[in-house]
């Protein structure tokens, strides 16, 4: 009896310490600083909640008892399930309740002056996606910052390169324009997922003749490509070139304010590879100039930039995935390098069937691990 008492006691004490220590270490998701807090003024017969809607995630309520009775504050879910509560709020006291609400829906807030009864209820709407993301170590935030910097740098190059290309078109210098065309497009193709998010600009800048919507004029890069390689400069080529510069500048100014999410980065990386698989590998994209491999390389660069930015976050959640991604990227880049020609690439039409197939299977092999990234990052 005595011996067992002692050992039980010691074991219990140890377990409790561990439990408490473990619990204390639970880190939250987003910063719940005081400025995000929802103020609640609890009176003897009132319960004023500053806002009755919030996004899913960590909610912080700052409850101040302005009444004369001790009060409690509850957040109820469906069927009066208690999501969180804070008790013992004596008059004049301010206490904080942090609740992690993961599911959108209608919740209820309640103040209970005198700690009794059903309390003074009010509806509270929670919106947004389920499953607030955990960002231990801030890797996700760092990833979006780093990729945003990459996008900004590419846009910084896209504008002057496009201007140079447009100047050559306007000057009627066809050879120079032809050599500048794939260079300017490289910076566009690297950030294609971001650029395509502006649904009004994308078709104007990068629309292909065969896929334009009803009533849309054929403008932008591909219109000028056709002029340069097929028909020769036309009377309105200069105007189209000016329009292209204006559209690219508009894109640049809009990109500055864009907000990216880690999941968007991961999806973008996958989209770029899909672009390669559906457009570049088939030679459809640059059907007049056959500079598809430039775009191909640029898409792969953009995809890799997004994955590189996410690397610490991926590593944190899946230790083996980054190595797989690295080998597949390296393999694809090695194949592309075989087709380099001076500063650029061989024309798409110069590739053999076999070489196209090789590239296609390398893209597929890379697409498979890249498609896992979004899910890994969201976990």
């Amino acid at each position, binding site marked *: 009896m005595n011996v067992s008492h002692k050992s039980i*006691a010691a074991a219990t*004490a140890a377990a409790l310490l561990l439990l408490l220590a473990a619990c204390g270490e639970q880190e939250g998701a987003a910063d719940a600083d005081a400025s995000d807090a929802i103020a609640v003024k609890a009176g003897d017969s009132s319960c004023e909640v500053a806002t009755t809607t919030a996004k899913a995630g960590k909610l912080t309520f700052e409850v101040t008892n302005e009444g004369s009775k001790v009060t409690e504050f509850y957040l109820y879910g469906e069927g*009066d399930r208690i999501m969180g509560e804070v008790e013992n709020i004596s*008059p004049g006291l301010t206490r904080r309740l942090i609740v992690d609400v993961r599911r959108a829906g209608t919740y209820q807030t309640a103040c209970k002056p005198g700690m009794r009864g059903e309390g003074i209820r009010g509806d509270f709407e929670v919106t947004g996606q389920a499953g607030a993301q955990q960002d231990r170590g801030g890797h996700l935030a760092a990833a979006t910052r780093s990729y945003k910097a990459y996008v900004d740098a590419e846009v910084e190059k896209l504008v002057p390169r496009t201007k140079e290309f447009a100047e050559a078109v306007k000057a009627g210098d066809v050879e120079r324009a032809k050599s500048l065309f794939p260079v300017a497009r490289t910076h566009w193709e690297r950030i294609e997922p971001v650029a395509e998010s502006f649904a009004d600009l994308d078709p104007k800048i990068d629309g292909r003749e065969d896929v334009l919507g009803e009533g849309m004029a054929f403008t932008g890069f591909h219109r000028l490509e056709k002029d340069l390689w097929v028909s020769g400069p036309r009377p309105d080529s200069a105007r189209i070139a000016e329009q292209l510069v204006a559209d690219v500048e508009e894109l640049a100014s809009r990109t500055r304010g864009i907000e990216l999410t880690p999941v968007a980065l991961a999806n973008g990386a996958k989209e770029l590879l899909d672009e390669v698989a559906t457009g570049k590998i088939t030679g459809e994209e640059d059907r007049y100039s056959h500079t598809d491999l430039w775009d191909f390389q640029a898409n792969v660069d953009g995809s890799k930039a997004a994955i590189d930015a996410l690397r610490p976050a991926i590593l944190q959640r899946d230790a083996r995935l980054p190595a797989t991604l690295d080998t597949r990227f390296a393999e694809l880049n090695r194949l592309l390098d075989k087709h380099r020609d001076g500063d650029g690439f061989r024309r798409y039409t110069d590739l053999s069937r076999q070489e196209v197939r090789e590239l296609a299977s390398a893209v597929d092999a890379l697409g498979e691990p890249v498609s896992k990234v979004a899910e890994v990052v969201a976990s």
Partner: protein
Amino acid sequence: MLFSSTLIGLREGLEAALVVSILVAFLVRTDRRGALRWVWLGVSIAVVLSIAVGAVLTYTTAQLSFEQQELLGGALSIVAVAFVTGMIFWMRRASKSIAAELRGKLDDALKIGPAAVLVLSFLAVGREGLETAVFFYAAVQTAQGGTSQPLLGFAIGIAVAVALAYLLYRGAVRFDLGRFFTVTGVLLVFVAAGVLGYGLHDLQEARFLPGLDVLAFDASGVLPEDSWYGALLKGVFNYSQQTTVVQALAWIGYVAIVLTLFLRPDRETRRDTAPTAPATGSASTVKE
């Protein structure tokens, strides 16, 4: 404003202070002063841990989910009940041995391991320690924000709880030994029953046990928790104004079983020197 904070401090501090003071009195009366350091160690660990975890919860975004909090509180309470029950029966044996004047045998009969003493003190203080620490930080922050009333009231309440416990200790030390054990034992039975009910209620709130809405009674009108007598009842016996059926049944069951066992005549008393029949002192001997 000041008064209601005082009551909260008193309520949170009272039970822990009572259990610790009874334990100390018990060790002092049975000449086991050597074990006192384990009491203070257990109390210190609980206080330091509560303050530390309370600080983490207050000043970082770390948090326990509501369910975790309640599961922890509930589990701690139920473990505490086990230890207090153990203590009750140690006391019973002590009173029998002392009544039988078997001083020599006392030490053998009352082998309380240091670890048991330590854990008991730790649980008594730590069970409500975290909640109390978090409340304390909130009071401090409110004080920085302009009103120190809650902090002041809370401090007064804790001080009153400690003073009451000290008075109980003083009285206990002067008491006739056999009676001391009986009275404090009975008191502890009710304390432990309250802790058990409280723990089960926590588990119900965490949805670990069903029946949160099935109330046995709701006395919030007659005996509100925010009145001074309600606070005292809650502090000592974990009275709750809205008691669920599960809570009530656990309380009744525990008291019925443990009190019967505690007060049953000892069949093993081989001596004829009948002990002074322990008058079942009512709790009114406790200074209120």
